[in-house]
């Protein structure tokens, strides 16, 4: 789990920065941190980059996080990249939808750096 190439998908630039800070506070070694503000932008990134980890919001304009995860699972070069959802949507239905679509973790906002670590590490080892 060294030098991770990570993509953070959230329509809030503030939240993208917070997630990156939490990953660094969690002690993860990040070789590269890429950002996207919606699922469509994220799909464009994954088609051109080899990634180790994706953290993704659900409620976003253009393409939401659930649709992104579904489409990701159809991409040969990216279908095995672990995705952890980070979202305000905490319902059981959303969790089931996200995991069914292929997400490896589900973290509700608000969160702490420790909680990010607790959700990201198992997702990386389950890769």
């Amino acid at each position: 789990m060294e030098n991770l190439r990570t993509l953070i998908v959230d329509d809030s630039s503030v939240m993208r920065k917070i997630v990156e800070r939490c990953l660094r506070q969690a002690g993860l070694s990040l070789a590269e941190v890429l950002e996207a503000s919606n699922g469509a932008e994220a799909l464009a990134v994954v088609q051109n980059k080899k990634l180790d980890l994706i953290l993704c919001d659900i409620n976003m304009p253009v393409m939401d996080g659930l649709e992104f995860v579904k489409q990701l699972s159809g991409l040969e070069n990216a279908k095995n990249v672990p995705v952890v959802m980070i979202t305000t949507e905490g319902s059981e239905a959303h969790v089931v939808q996200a995991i069914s679509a292929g997400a490896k973790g589900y973290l509700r906002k608000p969160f702490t750096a420790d909680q990010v670590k607790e959700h990201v590490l198992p997702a990386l080892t389950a890769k």
Partner: protein
Amino acid sequence: MIMNASSSPFDSDRERWMPTLQLAAQEVFELMLASPLTVPVQPPAEESLDITSMVGLAGELCGVMSVRCSTRAAARMASQMLGTDPAAAGAEMWDALGEICNMIAGNFKNKITGLGDGCVLSVPTVITGADYNLHSLVNEEIRIVLLFQDDPVVILLEVHN
């Protein structure tokens, strides 16, 4: 606070909505800003509340959640969230306040039994300026005023039954 009767499945929780909303807001500030939202001893003067963030709720609970504060307070919130200088907050304070409102709304609905699956949130909208009137089809509201570093923060949940 005005409460109307309803047959919603989460109806039994309604008397707990105000303390639940307060707890939801306080958790967001403690976890994401590492700064408490405190209950004022005296009602604070609600002056210069010139930035408002709103998130729509749809489904079993329809309405609007809003968070209103001063630009100074919003800049400090962004600063606390990002670990930067408040003077450098710029446009990020709008983004930060939008996310705060979004997280309070999400945290609130996730705490209300039976509501999580049946209510969806919009992306946040932020209004700057204090001189406006907002008209919505509301027949119930919960309003709380808390302090963020001595600045008032007004949190309003307007519900259309």
